[in-house]
């Protein structure tokens, strides 16, 4: 296979993809890094003095940033907890034999295909609206007071919306992993006298552990960049109660025109994402050899 001819051809075929990605990664990142050291606003783009780490100290000491950091963590961890926990349970359920398995499967994975803006608006208006929303009316019908979700619990609302979108992803992947578990193993365990719960604990869960790791890592990458769901529901508010880092940085640039601060924020986000990325790349790299 590997003759000289094919090798140089191979290099030529890889080059375009590698080069465009290299440019896409390095040029803007270098520029972001550069901008983050300037006092640069869109209102006065012609005077951009060098200010060193000032943008970072401004950004990092801004109470909004700290709130956004905390919100980001709550958002990521909250959604992960719901989707992984729920995903395992639903995957176990869908792995059973029942009437209409395939249709239920379709129902369960459907939210994943709903675009973020639609998901957010549907939930905000038709589910969570305190007066007309289905949830409000449901609560009222059993005699409870409706909740003004977007005002009273903005972050929780966003967690719920995002979790709804990602639950199918977790379920689908965990179900795929579950179905690759051979019947033999479970039967062997049954022969050994294991009860259903211990089979789950000692056989099924370890078998799924890799898929769970993959779900956690990949979702984290996407969850760190949640944006549209916030934009069309709470716009980060009230105050900064539901602002995450992505939203904060985008807002700094497109609303306030503060390029310097936004760039510093962008770099911070890159660093955070990298911490996760290192684990993910390692994991998938190991998988490549297998």
């Amino acid at each position, binding site marked *: *296979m*590997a*003759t*000289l*001819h094919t090798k140089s051809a191979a290099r030529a075929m890889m080059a375009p993809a590698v080069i465009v990605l290299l440019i896409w990664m390095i040029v803007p990142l270098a520029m972001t890094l550069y901008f983050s050291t300037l006092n640069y606003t869109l209102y006065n783009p012609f005077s951009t003095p060098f200010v060193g780490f000032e943008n970072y100290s401004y950004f990092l000491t801004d109470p909004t940033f700290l709130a956004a950091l905390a919100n980001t963590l709550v958002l990521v961890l909250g959604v992960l907890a719901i989707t992984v926990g729920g995903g395992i349970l639903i995957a176990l359920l869908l792995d059973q034999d029942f009437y209409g398995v395939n249709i239920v499967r379709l129902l369960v994975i459907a939210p994943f295909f709903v675009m973020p803006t639609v998901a957010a608006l549907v939930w905000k208006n038709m589910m969570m609206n305190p007066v007309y929303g289905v949830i409000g009316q449901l609560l009222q019908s059993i005699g409870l007071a409706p909740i003004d979700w977007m005002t009273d619990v903005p972050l929780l609302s966003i967690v719920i919306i995002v979790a709804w979108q990602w639950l199918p992803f977790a379920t689908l992947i965990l179900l795929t992993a579950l179905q690759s578990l051979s019947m033999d193993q479970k039967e062997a365990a049954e022969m050994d006298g294991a009860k259903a719960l211990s089979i789950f604990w000692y056989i099924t869960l370890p078998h799924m552990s890799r898929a769970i790791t993959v779900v956690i890592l990949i979702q984290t990458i996407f969850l760190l960049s949640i944006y549209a769901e916030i934009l069309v529901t709470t716009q980060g508010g009230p105050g900064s109660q539901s602002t995450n880092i992505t939203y904060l940085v985008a807002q700094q640039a497109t609303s306030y025109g503060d390029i310097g601060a936004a760039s510093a924020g962008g770099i911070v986000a890159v660093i955070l994402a990298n911490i996760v990325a290192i684990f993910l790349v390692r994991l998938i790299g190991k998988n490549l050899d297998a």
Partner: protein
Amino acid sequence: MGQIHLEKVRKAFGDVVIIPELDLQIEDGEFVVFVGPSGCGKSTLLRLIAGLEDVTGGKIVIDGKDATTLPPAKRGLAMVFQSYALYPHMSVRKNIAFPLKMAGMDKAEIDKRVDYAAKTLNLDNYIDRRPGQLSGGQRQRVAIGRAIVREPEAFLFDEPLSNLDAALRVGMRLEISELHQRLKTTMIYVTHDQVEAMTMADKIVVLRAGNIEQVGSPLELYLHPRNTFVAGFIGSPKMNLLGGNEAAKYQAATMGVRPEHIRLSTADGAWKGTVKVSEHLGSDTFLHVESPVHDEPLTVRAGGEFPVHAGDVVYLTPEPDKVHRFDDKGLAMKGNGRAIG
């Protein structure tokens, strides 16, 4: 014509040298078998000849022409792969026709040749099926069909029968031998299987770590192994190789005697031992005998119904004119030597 000469051929993957330097002459019409332990470079050597890998050094001459840098298709060789490598999206007919189509042959001629190949290989009934709908043996035949329609200068086979079950293997072995009788085209055949090598080959090439240990007809290799490696590799079950005292009796560093060249007695003989395992194959019985003269059990062939059991005491005597002697470098020495004492 199908004459292939390798001159000082070398192959390395990066820094790892797989074939140090190798010369080999394959004459027109020969059936040459490459054997050797796993990982010794048999497939690599075949792929170098095919042009699927570049040589690191040396020359490959096919029919007098330097083919070292020719692409695979230009070498006039056909290859049958271990996995058959059939095109899964094409019918049997299309698979067999593919090389002809690539050569730009006209439709009528292609059909004629494909039909002929299908008939000789008993594939007529499956001609419109896809490879996925065929059994292993049928797939193997399609792969061979695809190779023969091109009328190549030589066929290259890389362990073509290793994916078949034992019965089919025997059948296909005969078919390939017959094919060779009929076509008289050069064939190079890689195998692990002793029996395939011994029965099919005009010439066996024994490889070890990319080096040729010996080249010769099956009988030559059996009768006159050049060194202990070939002695141990050719012949089944393996030759018994003994060092130390026993070898010294024959003025050698190592003495060897094949299981079929040991006389067995329950009364007396040169080596006393205890039967550990006896394998009754019907026509033959192989005994594994533990004896103080050697730290591994000795293998002995007994007649079909030789009445011994595990635990019995037996006496073994090597037939003196069938003893092989090797010097301290493992190379064969002339003559059978004479046992002292």
